[in-house]
C-alpha cells in the first residue's frame, strides 16, 4: 500500500495504483504476467474525474487483456472488492487476482465539496437533500448507542486518542498523533457530540492485495494468510427506518456469516481491524461484531488496547491510518494479514493470534463486509 495522507507531492492517483500494485507483486514474488484478473475498488468517479476506472487502471499498471471490473459499496468498496476477487478465484474464473483500491478524496476537491458528495452516501432524496453531513448522521446514531449502553463522550475520546497513538508506529498512517483524551475533548465541535478528533480524515492513497489458491503461488517457503470466511449484509439506508438507530444490525449479520463460514466463534479472534470512521462507530462495530459481551465495560478495562486481550485497530484504523475510501477495505485486509504474520510495519499483536477479523461498511453500516483471516 502507499502511504495514506493528503498528497502534496504532485503524484497522481494512477501513480498510487501503480506503486501499490508493484509492491504487492514483489511481496507475492509474482511477475505481472501471472495476474489474470483485476478488481478495482473506488467509491466515486467525482474524486478522480475518471469513469470506468477499472479499464484505465488496467491500462496504467500493465494489465491490458486481463478480465477487469470495478466494485463499489461506499466505505466497504475495498473490502467488497476483495470478496469479489475471492469469488473469482473460488469459481475458477481466475487463478491470481489483483485487487486494487484507490481514492483521491483529500487533495482533488475542497473539503466542503467532498462533504456534499459524501452526504449522498445515505438516502440522497431525503438525508442528502436535507444537507445533513456524514458526521451529523453518525452523531445521531452514536447518541442512540450512548443512550442505550451508557457510553460517554470520554469513552469515545479514548478510542480517538488510542487509535492515533497506535498510528504513530505505522509509517503509512495519515494521522499519527501523540494525543490524549483531553485533546479530543477540546477539539472543535463538528456535530455534537462529535469533535474534530472523533472523525477520521479524508485521505489519498491506494492499496493492493493479490488473491490466489496456495497451489497457484510460487513456493517461496513464506507463510501466507488465508481468507477463511466472509460475510456481507445490508441494512435500511435511512437511520430512521431502523428499529434501533444506534445498532449496526447488518454488521451483526455479516459477522455471523463470516464466522460461520470460517467455522469458528468470535472468541477465536485475536486481532481486529474495524471500521472506525468515527470514534463511536468503533464501539458500535465491536458490539455488532459480537467481539464483546459488554463493549463499554471492555473499552474501559483496556481490552481493545494494543497490549489488551483483543487488540483493535493496531494500524490506527481509519482514525489514524486514514481513509482513502476505495483503498480503505483493501488496506484493512492487508494490514490484518500482516499482523497475523507479525510483519506489519507498525504495532503487531503480542499473542501471535491465529485468526484476525476485518470489518468495513458503507453508508452508516448500511452495506457491511466482514472477513475472517487465518494464519496458515
Amino acid at each position, binding site marked *: 500500500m502507499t502511504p495514506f495522507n493528503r498528497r502534496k507531492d*504532485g503524484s497522481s492517483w494512477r501513480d498510487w495504483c501503480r506503486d501499490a500494485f508493484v509492491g504487492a507483486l514483489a511481496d507475492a514474488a509474482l511477475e505481472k504476467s501471472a495476474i489474470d484478473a483485476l478488481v478495482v475498488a473506488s467509491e466515486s468517479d*467525482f474524486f478522480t*474525474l475518471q469513469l470506468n476506472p477499472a479499464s484505465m487502471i488496467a491500462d496504467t499498471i500493465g494489465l491490458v487483456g486481463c478480465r477487469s471490473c470495478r466494485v463499489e459499496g461506499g466505505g466497504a468498496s475495498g473490502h467488497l472488492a476483495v470478496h469479489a476477487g475471492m469469488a473469482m478465484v473460488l469459481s475458477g474464473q481466475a487463478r491470481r487476482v489483483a485487487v486494487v483500491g484507490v481514492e483521491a478524496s483529500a487533495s482533488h476537491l475542497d473539503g466542503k465539496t467532498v462533504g456534499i458528495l459524501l452526504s449522498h452516501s445515505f438516502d440522497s*432524496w*431525503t*438525508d*442528502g*437533500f*436535507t*444537507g*445533513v*453531513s456524514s*458526521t*451529523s*448522521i453518525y*452523531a*445521531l446514531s452514536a*447518541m*442512540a448507542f450512548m*443512550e442505550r449502553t451508557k457510553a460517554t463522550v470520554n469513552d469515545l475520546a479514548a478510542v480517538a486518542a488510542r487509535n492515533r497513538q497506535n498510528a504513530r508506529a505505522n509509517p503509512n498512517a495519515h494521522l499519527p498523533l501523540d494525543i490524549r483524551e483531553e485533546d479530543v475533548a477540546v477539539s*472543535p*465541535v*463538528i*456535530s*455534537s*457530540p*462529535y469533535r474534530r478528533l472523533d472523525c477520521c480524515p479524508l485521505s489519498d492513497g491506494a492499496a493492493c492485495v493479490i488473491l490466489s489458491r496456495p497451489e497457484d503461488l510460487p513456493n517461496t517457503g513464506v507463510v501466507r494468510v488465508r481468507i477463511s470466511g466472509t460475510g456481507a449484509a445490508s441494512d*435500511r439506508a*435511512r*437511520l*430512521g*427506518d431502523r428499529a434501533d*438507530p444506534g445498532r449496526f444490525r447488518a454488521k451483526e449479520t455479516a459477522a455471523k456469516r463470516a464466522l460461520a463460514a470460517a467455522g469458528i466463534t468470535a472468541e477465536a479472534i485475536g486481532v481486529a481491524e474495524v471500521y472506525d470512521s468515527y470514534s463511536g462507530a468503533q464501539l458500535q462495530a465491536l458490539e455488532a461484531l459480537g467481539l464483546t459481551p459488554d463493549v463499554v465495560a471492555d473499552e474501559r478495562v483496556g481490552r481493545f488496547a494494543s497490549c489488551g486481550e483483543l487488540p483493535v485497530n493496531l494500524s490506527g484504523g481509519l482514525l489514524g491510518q486514514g481513509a482513502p475510501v476505495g483503498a480503505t477495505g483493501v488496506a484493512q485486509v492487508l494490514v490484518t494479514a500482516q499482523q497475523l504474520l507479525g510483519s506489519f510495519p507498525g504495532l503487531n499483536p503480542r499473542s501471535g493470534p491465529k485468526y484476525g477479523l476485518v470489518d468495513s461498511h458503507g453508508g452508516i453500516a448500511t452495506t457491511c463486509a466482514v472477513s475472517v483471516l487465518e494464519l496458515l
Partner: protein
Amino acid sequence: MTKHRLTLDHSLPKGRLTPYFEALAQGRALAECCSSCGRVQFPPGGICGRCDAAELAWTSLSGNAVVIHRTDTPDRAFALVRFEGAKNSAVVAIANPDVRSSWGRLVISPASAQGLTIELNDKGNEHV
C-alpha cells in the same frame, strides 16, 4: 497540476414518490400506509418496513414531530424525529436551531435544501 471545473445540473424524476415530494414542497406530510398491516411510515420508502408489502396507500399526517436525538454543528442543527402518526423516524434539518425544544412541525424547506425541515416550537419541552 491542472484545474478542471465540472458543473452539474441534475433533473431527478421521483417516480412513484412524486406525490410525497409535491406535498413536501407545500409543507405537508404525506405518508405511506401499508394496505396489508396498516403501518404508517413517513418519510415513505416504497415498501412496508414491518411486513415488506409493496401495496401502500397515501395518507396525510399532521406534520407535528417529536425530537428523539439532536445534533448541532457550528452553524446548523439536525435531529432524528418521529412524526405524529408514523412508526418510523426521520432525519430532519432544524429551521430554528437557536430554539431548544422537543417538539416541532414540518415546514417548507429552503429551495437549496429539498429534504425534510422542521421548525421547533419554542414553548415545547426542553429536554433535548
